[in-house]
């Protein structure tokens, strides 16, 4: 009997079909830690504990269920939660793997030198915390507490932030700003006087037209967002996707515009041109709410679709038709700002163009466009005022990047370098839940800064690359084993969520709140940690918000009433938080700071012969490098592949699944090899891979050496002059087909 016929057959899940492939002994891997229980959990009777997910920043709320043996079995979404609506994404569902991963950090480790070689020695918590506190005291005494920096991403960062501020430093940064969403925040602040934040208040649920500029929703599983996109597809809303790659969402779009990479600004400016010169913009809205229309009109005069065609490879009629589609849907149209927007260094300006388009389409503050989100304020547990630091990140960053909204991780790294001659020197790093070596481009610089530190502490659940450079490694228990600070998030309705442990911490791991408090006590900061345990602290906060820990332990999520309107009423007076009180099509703020008041097209470099632009993205079952070792998620995708256009593959004689190495424009060669995936879904001038693979720490038994880490090939960093973002998409690679790391011994 014939098997199912499959054209260009590619199984996304590595496990693929059942049948004979499954009989392969290599795949018959059954780890001993798997729960042995065979009968499924009865949700109506099983014990469950509320949590919110820590596998990505969307932080969906759900319940952790235990099986009959009292072990963690599965995680199911909380129906009251607007982030998840009761449905977790594959990463959230597979979050159990984070708990069961036997490669986790198990006890505190201290760097010691034995026989002339650095090694990690397991030590007690007391020893680890005393050591850190003594070092921090010495740093405060010798250089001032300001010279300690906190770099974080995990939820428990909130407790370490409190610790650091109490200690006396505000040198605090998250890579998610300058390496990810910073440009869009700065672009929207310059236009609307307000950033976007998370989850994005885009009213996808009610939109008639969704425009995506390189945003590959569906491959990035921003849960509530993809749910609304799916509903939009059901309702027949049109999607317009701009991407050099035939992304999943491109395949669901009415218009896919396969743009020549790095030319997005030309397309955006030509859309603005058509809206204005064909009179398709929302005149009433622009007249009432916008500032600088005449200047904008003059500015875009020459940016015709014909002009843009020469830059973008997108035909003039496609440019016109797609923007007509937007105008038809106005104001129920969203030109989505994307999330990872650090591309070419002019990213704030590109997001400005996106913000301007939304304004011309009258969609900001309108149903089906952008709603006004609301968020519940979480009260601070009573504590003395923080000491006033003599200097902070702003003193390092703002003289150069005047619109930087938060601390910039790479600036704090620069301030830690030995050749830093400024008065602002960083001497110690506290790193919580972020693998700096792969999140910050220019790994060499980061390593150089690390060598110059007096103290480096890493708090993590997994032995990520960065842990290997620490003086002290503190093993944090996973989110399924700990309390964390309250999740209060902006949404259509303000809502809060509780995370509580469903199991005891495995091995000697501990929650972040406990570490922060213990350090606080050792640093003489007991007045800042007056609570005995976190339950007491959370209960006090919940009570101020009109609930209690007891209630939250039952319901997990509480949604509050709204205090303001979701949308602008027709003709409603509204003042934006800009200099003019209007939406600034022409930005007075940027102009005053010495930047272009309106976005300009800048020609970016295109690849040289035999080189291809390195484009990276996400897979729905992974969150960057956080999940590549998770047994459940590694099972679905254990390595990335390099997408290569068939024409290119033919020139190079590449075959599907052939292992190759990559070399970039600066002659950096990838540490590991990657399998080739020949596919029509990528342009001939680019290659594509999923970020987060090619792990370099051997303690990650499943992820080590699997695939290529794009960040080691990103050595050409284009800094955004406005907010300091690190543009990473101007890197080009060529192929190496023979192993460049083979050792050659000459006799």
């Amino acid at each position: 009997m014939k098997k199912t016929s499959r054209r260009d057959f590619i199984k996304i899940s590595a496990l693929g079909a059942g049948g004979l492939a499954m009989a392969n002994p290599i795949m018959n891997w059954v780890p001993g830690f798997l729960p042995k229980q065979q009968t499924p959990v009865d949700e109506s009777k099983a014990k469950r504990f509320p949590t919110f997910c820590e596998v990505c920043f969307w932080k969906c709320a759900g319940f952790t269920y235990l099986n009959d043996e009292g072990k963690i079995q599965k995680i199911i979404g909380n129906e009251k939660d607007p982030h998840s609506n009761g449905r977790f994404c594959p990463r959230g569902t597979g979050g159990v793997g984070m708990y069961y991963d036997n490669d986790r950090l198990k006890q505190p480790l201290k760097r010691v030198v034995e026989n002339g070689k650095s090694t990690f020695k397991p030590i007690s918590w007391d020893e680890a915390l005393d050591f850190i506190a003594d070092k921090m005291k010495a740093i405060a005494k010798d250089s001032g507490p300001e010279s300690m920096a906190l770099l974080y991403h995990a939820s428990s960062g909130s407790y370490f932030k409190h610790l650091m501020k109490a200690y006396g430093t505000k040198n605090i940064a998250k890579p998610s700003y300058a390496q990810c969403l910073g440009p869009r925040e700065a672009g929207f602040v310059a236009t609307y006087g307000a950033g976007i934040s998370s989850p994005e208040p885009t009213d996808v649920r009610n939109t008639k037209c969704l425009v995506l500029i390189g945003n590959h929703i569906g491959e990035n599983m921003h849960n509530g967002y993809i749910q609304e996109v799916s509903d939009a597809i059901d309702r027949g809303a049109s999607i317009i996707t701009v991407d050099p790659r035939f992304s999943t969402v491109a395949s669901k779009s009415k218009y896919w515009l396969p743009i020549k990479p790095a030319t997005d600004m030309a397309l955006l400016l030509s859309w603005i041109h058509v809206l204005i010169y064909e009179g398709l913009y929302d005149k009433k809205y622009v007249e009432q709410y916008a500032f600088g229309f005449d200047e904008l009109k003059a500015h875009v005069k020459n940016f015709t679709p014909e002009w843009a065609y020469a830059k973008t490879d997108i035909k003039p009629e496609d440019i016109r038709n797609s923007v007509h589609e937007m105008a038809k849907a106005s104001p129920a149209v969203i030109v989505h700002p994307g999330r990872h927007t650090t591309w070419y260094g002019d990213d704030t300006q590109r997001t400005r163009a996106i913000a301007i388009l939304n304004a011309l389409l009258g969609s900001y503050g309108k149903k089906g466009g952008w709603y006004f989100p609301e968020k519940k304020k979480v009260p601070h547990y009573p504590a003395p005022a923080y000491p006033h630091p003599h200097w902070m990140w702003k003193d390092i960053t703002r003289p150069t990047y005047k619109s930087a909204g938060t601390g910039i991780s790479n600036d704090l790294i620069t301030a830690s370098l030995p050749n830093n001659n400024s008065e602002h020197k960083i001497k110690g790093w506290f790193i919580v839940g972020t693998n700096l070596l792969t999140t910050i481009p220019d790994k060499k610089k980061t390593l150089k800064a690390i060598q110059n530190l007096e103290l480096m502490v890493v708090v993590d659940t997994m032995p990520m690359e960065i842990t290997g450079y620490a003086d002290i490694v503190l093993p944090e228990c996973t989110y399924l084993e700990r309390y964390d600070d309250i999740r209060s998030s902006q949404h259509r309705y303000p809502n809060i969520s509780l995370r509580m442990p469903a199991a005891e911490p495995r091995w000697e791991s501990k929650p972040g709140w406990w570490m922060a408090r213990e350090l606080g006590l050792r640093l003489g900061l007991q007045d800042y940690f007056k609570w005995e345990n976190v339950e007491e602290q959370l209960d006090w906060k919940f009570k101020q918000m009109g609930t209690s820990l007891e209630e939250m332990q039952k319901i997990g999520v509480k949604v509050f009433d709204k205090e303001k309107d979701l949308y602008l009423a027709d003709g409603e007076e509204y003042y934006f938080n800009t200099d003019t009180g209007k939406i600034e099509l022409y930005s007075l703020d940027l102009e005053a700071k010495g930047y272009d008041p309106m976005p300009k097209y800048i020609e970016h470099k295109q690849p040289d012969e035999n080189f291809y632009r390195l484009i990276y993205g996400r897979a729905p079952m992974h969150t960057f490098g956080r999940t590549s070792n998770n047994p459940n998620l590694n099972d679905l995708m254990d390595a990335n592949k390099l997408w290569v256009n068939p024409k290119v593959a033919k020139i190079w004689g590449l075959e599907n699944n052939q292992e190759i190495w990559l070399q970039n424009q600066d002659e950096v060669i990838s540490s590991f090899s990657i399998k080739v995936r020949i596919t029509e879904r990528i342009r001939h001038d680019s290659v594509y891979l999923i970020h987060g693979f090619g792990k370099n720490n051997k303690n990650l038994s499943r992820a080590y050496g699997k695939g290529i880490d794009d960040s080691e090939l990103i050595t050409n960093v284009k800094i955004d002059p406005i907010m300091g973002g690190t543009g990473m998409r101007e890197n080009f690679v060529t192929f190496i087909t023979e192993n460049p790391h083979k050792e050659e011994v000459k006799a």
Partner: protein
Amino acid sequence: MRYAMAMDTKKCVGCSDCVVACQTENNVPHGYCRDWIVENVDGIYPNLELEIRSERCNHCDNTPCVRTCPTGASHVIEGGIVKVTHVECIGCGACIEACPYDARYFHPDGYVDKCTFCDHRTSKGQETACVAVCPTKCLYFGDLDDVNSPVSQVLLKRKWKVNAPEAGTKPQLYFLI
């Protein structure tokens, strides 16, 4: 009663949540799965089409797997759900060969395993784990004998196809196109 499932290829993004949810619901060991994602690309850049399907046992009306089973371990229960009684299975693999959909696998404990349409849930009126978790709501489950069931309703409204109709198995997994 005739249980069936429909999946909307227009909405599915191939995230594999159905795969993970099935694994944690049904204790499917790592390295194995009862459902999986298939992706078909057609055309030449930039004129392309992509179809993504979430696949599993088709719970066929005409079941070659049950016919070839020498011990009677493979059988059909109420609603047309095809099941394997693990203790009766000798792991001969005849059903695996007979299935045109690659829907069955050897469980490391020595028997053949496959999708059960989560009968432990559906018999109590709950959705299957994959349907309940799907973020795009692209999966529909229900009774084809009930015209008001979600699966009947969506099949009445939309165009659909099945996999390998030429195999003559009368599959009950419908793909909305």
